[in-house]
């Protein structure tokens, strides 16, 4: 079936990838796995502790919160935006949940997610109706979310451990936050690949004007993506409370950048329209493995920031140069 010669009535469904393409994609996915295996081999040489069950569980646990944030960031990056408010929204949701957990845990969780979604929607409204560039709009929302987080709780709020029992359950390597993360990523992967909503996002990121002319409801899609990003960031905040037993208003400074770096390691194109969310999640794991290795060799945490900065510069720099070369080749 040739989708070009037989346009479907809705006119904007993309062709299903062929078998050859999916095989190629599988190999490309393994390229990241290869990177991880090399890292793991190197780490095992340096530290015998690396390949223990405890440590692998640690890496996954550490990846879970950043992973959910990266899901949020990924959706926005696919449509050609950025969301700098993800970490501040995470902090806000964490304090809302932690404050309400002793009296009404479910209401606290829902309220946290609702707050995240509303702030995300606010970014979306500013970007679309207000015509503010995504970076500035989400920077403004970052300030709002961070301010509100401090209004809800001036200092860290700890949650009685008994309440968080259900979060502490683990199945082999997988704790509850990790399972939540993997399930969310799988659902989003399905949505992005198989639903009209998901394909629309790639169309908007690829070329917004063409997408609009082809009948994609750009405004509605953008609003939903930003709201979804806010809600996912809030869920990351809940996962953080589950992991650390406290809501912290100042938590996550710099995580918005980590989330961007992680998905770029996973091969997402920085200016929208391209990327595979599962690979982006692999990027998160690689990113956290590097952090874990730095901990294992007990590198001074002060130097770890410097190493991280250099990793971000190199990774994003390479990605930008590759994108520029591709564009140069096309035109």
């Amino acid at each position: 079936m040739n989708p070009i010669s037989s346009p479907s009535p809705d006119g904007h469904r993309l062709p299903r990838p062929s078998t050859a393409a999916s095989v190629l994609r599988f190999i490309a996915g393994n390229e990241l796995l290869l990177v991880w295996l090399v890292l793991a081999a190197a780490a095992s040489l340096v530290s015998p502790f690396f390949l223990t069950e405890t440590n692998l569980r640690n890496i996954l646990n550490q990846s879970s919160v950043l992973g959910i944030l990266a899901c949020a960031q990924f959706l926005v990056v696919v449509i050609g935006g950025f969301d700098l408010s993800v970490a501040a929204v995470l902090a806000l949701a964490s304090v809302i949940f932690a404050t309400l957990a002793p009296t009404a845990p479910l209401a606290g969780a829902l309220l946290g997610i609702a707050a995240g979604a509303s702030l995300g929607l606010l970014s979306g409204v500013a970007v679309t109706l207000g015509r503010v560039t995504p970076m500035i709009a989400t920077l403004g929302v970052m300030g709002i979310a961070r301010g509100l987080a401090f209004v809800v709780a001036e200092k860290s709020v700890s949650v009685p451990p008994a309440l968080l029992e259900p979060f502490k359950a683990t199945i082999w390597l997988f704790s509850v936050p990790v399972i939540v993360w993997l399930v969310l990523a799988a659902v989003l992967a399905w949505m992005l690949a198989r639903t009209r909503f998901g394909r629309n996002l790639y169309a908007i990121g690829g070329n917004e004007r063409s997408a609009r002319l082809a009948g994609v409801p750009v405004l509605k899609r953008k609003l939903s993506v930003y709201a979804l990003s806010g809600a996912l960031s809030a869920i990351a905040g809940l996962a953080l409370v589950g992991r650390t037993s406290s809501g912290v208003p100042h938590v996550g400074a710099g995580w918005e950048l980590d989330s961007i770096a992680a998905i770029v390691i996973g091969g997402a194109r920085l200016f929208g329209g391209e990327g595979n969310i599962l690979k982006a999640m692999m990027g998160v794991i690689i990113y956290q493995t590097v952090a874990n290795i730095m901990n294992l060799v007990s590198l001074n945490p002060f130097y770890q920031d410097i190493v991280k900065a250099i990793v971000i510069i190199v990774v994003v720099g390479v990605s930008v140069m590759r994108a520029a070369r591709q564009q140069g080749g096309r035109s």
Partner: protein
Amino acid sequence: MSTLIEVAGTRLRSPRFWQENGTLAVLLLFVVFATVVSEGVFIRPSNLITILYQASIVGVLVLGQSLVVIAGGLDLSIVAVLILSATVMGGAGSEQQSMMMLGGLPYIGLWPAVFAGFLTAAFFGLINGLMVTALRIPAFISTLATTLLVGGIILVVTGGSPIYYPDPFFTNFGNAKLFDLPAPVYVFFGLAAVVWWLLNHTSFGRKLYAVGGSERASHYSGLSVFVMRLAVFVLCGLCAGLAGFLFLSRTGYISYASGADLLMTTIASLVVGGISLAGGVGGVKHAVSGVLLLAALSNFMNIMLISPHIQDAVNGFVILIAVSTYSYINSEKA
């Protein structure tokens, strides 16, 4: 008489007029509003001096940032650079402080330390500029990465402990007054005059607007976009260094966590002043009026005993509303 009113009327209806003077008008309205609501406390000369004093550090940062933004970039690392250069000035410039530091900054004397502080600031400006021009990494990502990098360096240098005992010169300078106005206020307005001259009366300034307006057109008309971009990032770094000097003078203290709200305030001041983050638009009048409006707003909230955390949220809202409004005005013009 009637023609005068007509002329005034057409000017008031023109979007260009509001783009040029909107912030000033809002500032005046706000002063009236704040004076009435605070029952006169706001307009007291001592309070107005406080506002100017508080505005001076943000003002210096905004002036530096406005150069970068007019040229079409953005520097998110200014606060980190401010802290690092103040750390160098305070740490290496005081024997007592340098002996107390865990990380180790050697004592090199007051003036060499001040010089080294400015050099550090210029150096990281250069790094930002190189990442943006040579590597073509988007400005906000490269400068956020610089923030991380500089933050790490601050921790390594100080061992995580704050600077408590800078040379007494700093606090003496911060408290020095001429005609009741503290010295940092003169620094702010002095820098504003220099930047105004740079933007309006030099070829560098004119080229800056060209580069920000259209990078490609500037490139084809023979401007060295590379050098211009590099230069503005270095100048912005130097302004961050100067702001670090003022910060140390005002508080006699600097730590890794200092000035957490400065970045938001800086960007809010810029956009409230009407400097488009798309580049090519804006000037010193916009920068200064934006700074004063936000400083007045924050001072008013302090008088009304509103929590500083709510102020962060208010700054966020102000950014969204200001940018939306200006993009609306600009689309009217077109």
